[in-house]
């Protein structure tokens, strides 16, 4: 019944944010931030279990550890980027949110460079006379 807990926390937080916003809008934003953090922390424990399963499957399938680690890192960067971008967009700063998303994409590409080079090298080795 985790979903009921999360949904009720979200509803309570939105009510609190609405009430506080009339008096003190900056603290209402903090309420929103803390709600995001609490829900994220709650979800993170479940994600850890899923990632453990993925790692074990990868080991059993003899996938190279570097690749799985890179993929996990990319997923982590994507989650953090999304979190930050949504928070900044909620605060009304969509320009900064767009920049955060851009930075996330570029950092993901930088992290994925080893995989990209491996793919390109494999393709080149397939080419005749390459």
């Amino acid at each position, binding site marked *: 019944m985790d979903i009921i807990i999360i949904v009720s926390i979200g509803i309570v937080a939105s009510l609190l944010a609405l009430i506080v916003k009339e*008096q003190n809008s900056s603290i209402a934003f903090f309420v929103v931030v803390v709600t995001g953090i609490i829900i994220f922390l709650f979800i993170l424990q479940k994600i850890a279990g899923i990632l453990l399963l993925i790692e074990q499957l990868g080991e059993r399938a003899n996938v190279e550890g570097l690749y799985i680690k890179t993929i996990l890192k990319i997923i982590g960067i994507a989650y953090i980027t999304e979190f930050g971008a949504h928070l900044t967009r909620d605060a009304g700063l969509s320009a900064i949110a767009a920049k955060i998303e851009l930075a996330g994409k570029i950092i993901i590409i930088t992290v994925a460079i080893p995989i990209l080079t491996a793919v390109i090298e494999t393709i080149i080795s397939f080419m005749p006379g390459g």
Partner: protein
Amino acid sequence: MLSEAMILFQIAGIGMIVAIIHTVLKQMGKEEIAQFTTLMGFILVLLIVLGKLSELFQQIKSVFLFQG
């Protein structure tokens, strides 16, 4: 989980109390002190939120294998 949710009520409570103190001080004609209380309430909440945020980032780092 419940203790986590208590932080929400804590922050909302701080916000309301600070707003009330602000209004009272403003009625008394002490404009600067009212501004100062609002700032202090903001900093107090900021400290709580920063603690939670660093906890979240530590968890993300440990879950998603960020060593470097």
